[in-house]
């Protein structure tokens, strides 16, 4: 007998996890189907870790509305579940007169997006705020409400809360065949696993177009856009006070420099449209381009060691906005083309899903009693377990033995070093496991 659920959410990235969480807070049975070995391990693990106000979105788009709403929701939610956020603010830096002339139009754009706190400052003020910027700043635009956030704990928190409220997570479940029946939809994998669900939400990210076609629909095609990122040692953190944004061009939002909640500095992303949905490797050209840009923005960055280089694929499409749709007959909701802003908009997309489902005549009641969860925060500004005397195993990131052991026994457990790293920061620091790899193998049974 195949398992049956009222709703199946296909895709366990940050969006799918947010949807599964919100549905689990209602009186209905929910399954989250993840193709990979872990949730939050695709596009969601390789973003710029910024909680956007949405000041620079295209006014009137779904993305503009949902980023603004998602920002409100996630900035309120994160502190209640142990997801670290910091309101560091951002400065958009103009390096040429031409860029400086574009700043007033960005204020207007921000206002159209409902954001009224951006303002233009001269170069002296920019250097007062960010004394380590390289030479040549012409002017700047301050966006005081931009946040940085722990991007890995966000989907983990959603998933943990979903499970605590009865949702089931099935990993290694890549949906390759869909059959919409009269009462239930069959969702199958190539290796013969099958579940039945009355309603299906497509949050399959890079593979969203393929799932959409399985339901017999068309309308968007995913063109993976690779973004490479470089993370610098924590010693670089004192160079950067705020997120430093470039003036966007028609082609790209450009390369930014941002502090991370873990106390590092991030440089990136590049933006290359590619064909291969598995090409998450960094490239020689991408790294060289970032280093070249980074050197001009913060010359001092180049004196610091790099602790990580990685690439993520954003689920871009041929359209410039998200693709959201539903079909009452197929009892189906599609959250397609959710690009890098998906982290910020995730909780708003979950709200949107509930509205779409009600249009499909599915209106579950909000549960009277819900289980609360909280994670151990991983941010530098939060209290960390090592400060109250736990045995430190990962010295670079000061991760204790009990945090590491806990990550593999939790309700949404890590099954690999990569998963452990996202849940605890262990081995994510400057030595990359030189000291602690074997001890972690002993503690967790994971293979390095």
């Amino acid at each position, binding site marked *: 007998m195949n398992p049956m659920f009222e709703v199946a959410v296909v895709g366990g990235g940050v969006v799918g996890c947010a949807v599964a969480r919100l549905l689990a807070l209602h009186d209905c049975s929910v399954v989250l189907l993840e193709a990979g070995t872990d949730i939050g391990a695709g596009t969601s693990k390789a973003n710029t870790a910024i909680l956007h106000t949405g000041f620079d979105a295209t006014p009137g788009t779904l993305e503009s509305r949902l980023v603004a709403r998602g920002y409100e929701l996630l900035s309120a939610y994160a502190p209640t579940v142990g997801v670290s956020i910091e309101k560091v603010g951002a400065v958009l830096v103009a390096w040429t007169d031409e860029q400086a002339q574009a700043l007033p139009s960005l204020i207007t754009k921000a206002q159209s997006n409902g954001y009224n706190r951006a303002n233009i400052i001269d170069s002296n003020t920019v250097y007062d705020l960010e004394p380590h910027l390289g030479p040549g700043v012409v002017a700047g635009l301050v966006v005081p409400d931009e946040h940085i956030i722990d991007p890995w704990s966000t989907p983990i928190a959603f998933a943990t809360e979903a499970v605590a409220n009865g949702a089931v997570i099935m990993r290694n479940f890549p949906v390759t065949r869909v059959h919409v029946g009269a009462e239930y939809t069959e969702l199958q994998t190539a290796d013969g696993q099958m579940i039945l669900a009355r309603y299906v939400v497509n949050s399959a990210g890079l593979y969203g177009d393929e799932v959409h076609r399985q339901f017999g629909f068309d309308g968007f095609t995913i063109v993976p856009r690779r973004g490479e990122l470089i993370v610098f040692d924590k010693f670089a953190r004192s160079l950067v006070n705020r997120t430093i944004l470039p003036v966007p061009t028609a082609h790209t939002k450009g390369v930014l420099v941002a502090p991370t909640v873990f106390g590092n500095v991030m440089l990136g992303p590049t933006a290359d449209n590619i064909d291969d949905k598995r090409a998450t490797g960094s490239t020689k050209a991408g790294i060289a381009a970032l280093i070249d840009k980074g050197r001009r923005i913060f010359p001092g960055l180049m004196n610091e060691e790099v602790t990580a280089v990685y690439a993520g694929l954003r689920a871009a499409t041929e359209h410039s906005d998200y693709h959201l749709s539903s079909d009452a007959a197929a009892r189906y909701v599609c959250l397609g083309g959710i690009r890098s802003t998906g982290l910020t908009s995730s909780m708003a997309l979950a709200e949107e899903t509930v509205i779409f489902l009600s249009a499909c005549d599915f209106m579950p009641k909000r549960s009277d009693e819900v289980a609360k969860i909280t994670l151990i925060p991983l941010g530098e500004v939060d209290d960390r377990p090592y400060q109250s005397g736990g045995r430190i195993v990962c010295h670079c990131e*000061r991760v204790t033995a009990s945090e590491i052991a806990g990550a593999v026994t939790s309700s949404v457990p890590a099954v690999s070093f990569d998963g452990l790293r996202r849940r605890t920061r262990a081995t994510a620091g400057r030595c990359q496991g030189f000291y602690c790899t074997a001890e972690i193998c002993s503690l967790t049974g994971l293979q390095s």
Partner: protein
Amino acid sequence: MTAKRVEIVGGGPSGLSAAITLKRLGVAEVIVHEREPKAGGAPRHTEHLGFGIRDLHRVMSGPRYAARLVEMALAARVDLRLESTVFERPDCNALVVATGVRERPRSARLIPGDRPAGILTTGALQQLVQRGFPVGRRALIVGAEHVSFSAIMTLSHGGCRAVGLVTNHDRHQTYPPLKWMTATRHRVPIITGTDVEEIRGHGRVAEVALSNGQMIACDTVVFTGDWIPENELARHMGVALALDYPSPVIDENFATSLDGVFAVGNVAHRVKSADSCAVEGQRAARAVAAYLVR
């Protein structure tokens, strides 16, 4: 020196040797902070002979040497504190930073490609093999320093074959006997003047592209040497670092730019053997003792 207290951060060969000598010179209280559950430093994990020659005038294995230094420290009544991490400058008459050195990992070398499992440093490799964990079947070693050749032996103990040793230098940087005992004996080709261009593999390392056009099929890559001083505490305290290599600047008495703060062993200079660091620790202890009675 009856009322003086010296704290030493790091329980490796230089830190323990400094502590033992300070006690012998009559310093009342000598505390060694070792952040790991066991003291002895890097030699704990180096399961081959060649340790203790310069300081103990014997030839020992790494673990035996590490254990001997700990025994001597305890016998000398050094206050050895395990699992003790020092985050801030402690209140004491003199502080000795002996925090050692680590290998530069893949990320800091800016090597492009995928991020699969199977990418290690020698430090991690030695500990994995010592604990009996699997380390793959075919490994490419990056670097051709002493430690790189040591990695050949460690891999062999772990049931993994070294399929090549690649360095961007024109030649290897080790002693001919060590090269002979390892690379020659295990028939490991040394590829010189060559960079690692890209690591490929989903899940596990599958192949490595080299700048000479070669593609190496392997499931493990070991990044060896290319050392970085473990300078977090020193830098955090505001100790001046050298410009060409990020170790604390020290004078002939091992004194750093901060009064009362000394640095010794591999944190303080380009990497040297364990026994050389131990001898240095003994010398540093005499300098610290002189400082205490200045």
